[in-house]
């Protein structure tokens, strides 16, 4: 972990404490029904009460300027909050709302848009979500949802899926294909012509499928145009998702390590078997690489570093790989018990696979990094 200043240290301690007290893995487990599917009676796929607490503590406003009710602590701070929460698979829309939606408004929003939305995002009264993907893969360069010129505004037609935290969001940042290329819109969840339905995903987080049937918007709903804006927003999403994967992988590793130190077979602690020790040492090494890449990318956001796209893809690709590997090892090293829904290993595995795909697979980010670096 990078060196923190005093405020950051306090914040980090506070988050750890809160996760321990209020947000054990049992909360994530509570999203599942008995058979291992997402609970059908869930409305949002996240814990709305807990998010209100999180917002009251100011975490949802970490990226929001003070003028709009936030603390402007920066992405690095939000990054370790996301990481800590992800350790317990905390079902909260912090990445979607506090990282991605807030970044979208800061990067693209005019003064009126910022004033209209940032205070609500900061105090948690509104949850924002980015609607970019439309199918199986994250392909932000190829959008099918259309934005066509309508009287005094725009008309959106198409679908978005999966939209993380979309069932509980009040505001969607929608990426569309306009006549002049990519355009981004601010769409309230209650806009006429917009419907949503939950998807039963393996992590029980119930992302939304959004249908836009002639959703008509005013000119003031246009956040901005151009691939550059979308890319800049997505870079924040990549890094934030990587921070979550880092937290998830770190906890998966530590839980496994704990098991290795307590499980006895053949008359000895299984953690004393050298083959397992070496695998653990190698996982630890991968976690080190991942932490470095994630932290460097978070710092780059705060520093407006032009290398951010490359650093973001590095972080997401490596975080994907590490979380993938460690969640596999978590199940394997727990043996049969790790195969049961009753044990946490499966929850980490499932959430990891979702987060690996979210905002770009390893292939996507390695390809992006390679192109950015001349390979």
């Amino acid at each position, binding site marked *: 972990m990078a060196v923190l200043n005093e405020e950051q240290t306090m914040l980090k301690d506070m988050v750890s404490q809160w996760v321990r007290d209020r947000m054990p893995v049992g909360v994530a487990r509570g999203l599942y029904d008995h058979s291992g599917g997402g609970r059908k009676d869930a409305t949002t796929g996240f814990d709305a009460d807990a998010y209100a607490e999180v917002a009251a503590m100011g975490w949802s406003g970490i990226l929001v300027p003070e003028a709009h009710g936030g603390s402007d602590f920066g992405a690095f701070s939000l990054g370790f909050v996301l990481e800590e929460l992800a350790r317990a698979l905390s079902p909260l829309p912090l990445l979607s709302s506090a990282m991605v939606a807030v970044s979208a408004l800061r990067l693209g929003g005019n003064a009126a848009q910022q004033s209209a939305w940032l205070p609500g995002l900061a105090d948690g009264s509104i949850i924002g979500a980015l609607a970019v993907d439309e199918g199986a893969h994250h392909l932000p360069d190829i959008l099918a949802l259309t934005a066509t010129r309508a009287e005094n505004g725009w008309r959106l037609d198409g679908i978005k899926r999966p939209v993380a935290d979309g069932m509980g969001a009040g505001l969607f940042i929608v990426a569309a294909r306009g006549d002049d290329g990519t355009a981004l819109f601010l769409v309230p969840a209650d806009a006429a012509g917009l419907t949503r339905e939950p998807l039963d995903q393996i992590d029980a987080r119930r992302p939304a499928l959004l249908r836009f049937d002639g959703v008509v918007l005013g000119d003031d709903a246009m956040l901005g145009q151009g691939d550059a804006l979308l890319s800049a927003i997505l870079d924040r999403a990549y890094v934030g998702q990587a921070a979550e994967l880092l937290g998830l992988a770190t906890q998966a590793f530590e839980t496994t390590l704990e098991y290795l130190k307590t499980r006895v077979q053949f008359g000895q602690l299984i953690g004393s078997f050298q083959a397992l020790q070496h695998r653990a040492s190698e996982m630890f090494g991968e976690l080190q690489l991942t932490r470095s890449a994630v932290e460097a990318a978070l710092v780059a956001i705060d520093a407006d570093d032009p290398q951010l796209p490359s650093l973001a893809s590095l972080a997401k690709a490596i975080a994907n790989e590490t979380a993938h590997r460690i969640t596999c090892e978590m199940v394997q090293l727990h043996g049969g018990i790790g195969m049961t829904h009753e044990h946490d290993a499966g929850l980490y595995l499932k959430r990891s696979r979702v987060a690996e795909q979210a905002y770009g697979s390893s292939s996507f980010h390695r*390809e992006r990094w390679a192109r950015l670096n001349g390979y």
Partner: protein
Amino acid sequence: MNGLIFQGDAHAAAANADFQVWRKAMADKGWGTPTWDKAYGGAGLSAAQAKIIAQELSAIGAFNPIRSYGTMMLGPTLLEFGTEEQRLQHLPRISTHELRWCQGFSEPGAGSDLASLQMKCVDAGDHWVVSGQKIWTSGADQADWCFALVRTDTSVKHGGISFLLIDMTSPGVEARPIVLISGSTHFCEVFFNDVKVPKGNLVGAVNQGWNIAKRLLQFERSSLSEVKTDVTPLAPIAHAMLGTDAEGRIADADARARIVHNAMRHAAYLQTVRRFNEEARNGGPGNGVSTLKNLWSNIVQRRAELLVEVLGADGLGWSGDAYPADAREATRALLHSKAFSIYGGSYEIQNNITAKRSLGLPDR
């Protein structure tokens, strides 16, 4: 998680009326257990004749409708270690699939280290009293009988284990299905609370159960290597999901490289299964089962991950029409595949076995 058998569509088939008729016809001829003596419900055929039956079944795309834990595990065990009375009592009802058996081996504290099992079996004069817990008991909630390893002597480890046949309807037996990460509820925990078992239900001598179990696990291992390994090639799905480039290749070059690598290893794995089988038929070394199992779990698990990766968000669904049925199946298959390197001797145990038996590496 010892004792998982690939069920294929057997469960679905069993519910089918035609299937029932066919099973009865097979059972009447003794063809489910063709090499068993007719007195035991078999057909009294030679191994060569039995092979012809298997080939004919395979040729019409059928599987043996009698195949079960009973035919594959317990039957051969009773033939080798059971008394004539035990054989006559149990084998005919195995050969007709009249009664179903489950295997009570693993316990919560005895997984890889099976011999550390603790389920108590106390001599109460004219019967045994059994107390304890089993886990990973495949189909225990559906089973009529259980063959179990129990502890009859706590002063020694391997030499204090006995092999016992337990009627699952006995008072004090309770089977609870375990929900797996794939959603499957095929495995159970089974609790035994002061269960009375007749003296005659012990197979072999008291405290000789470990040798019987080792032999039985050989039957299991050899049946594992018969596992169906042909799988749909990933190429068409990858083209559909990831696109095709100007040269006709899967467009995602990074994913393609990994898919191809896995597919080539899979091809070589299938060649290896064929080679091992051929060598075994010709009396070759045959000590490669552990190696084969690890290659298999490694390659198949990676393939399952690749398929879900190729499916992207479509491969992340649990239920609902928003996800294609094939994709949902792939997702469950991925989750299920994680068990391949755990049950039947974990990946680590198999590596230990290979190191010692195939490579002759020393103990500490």
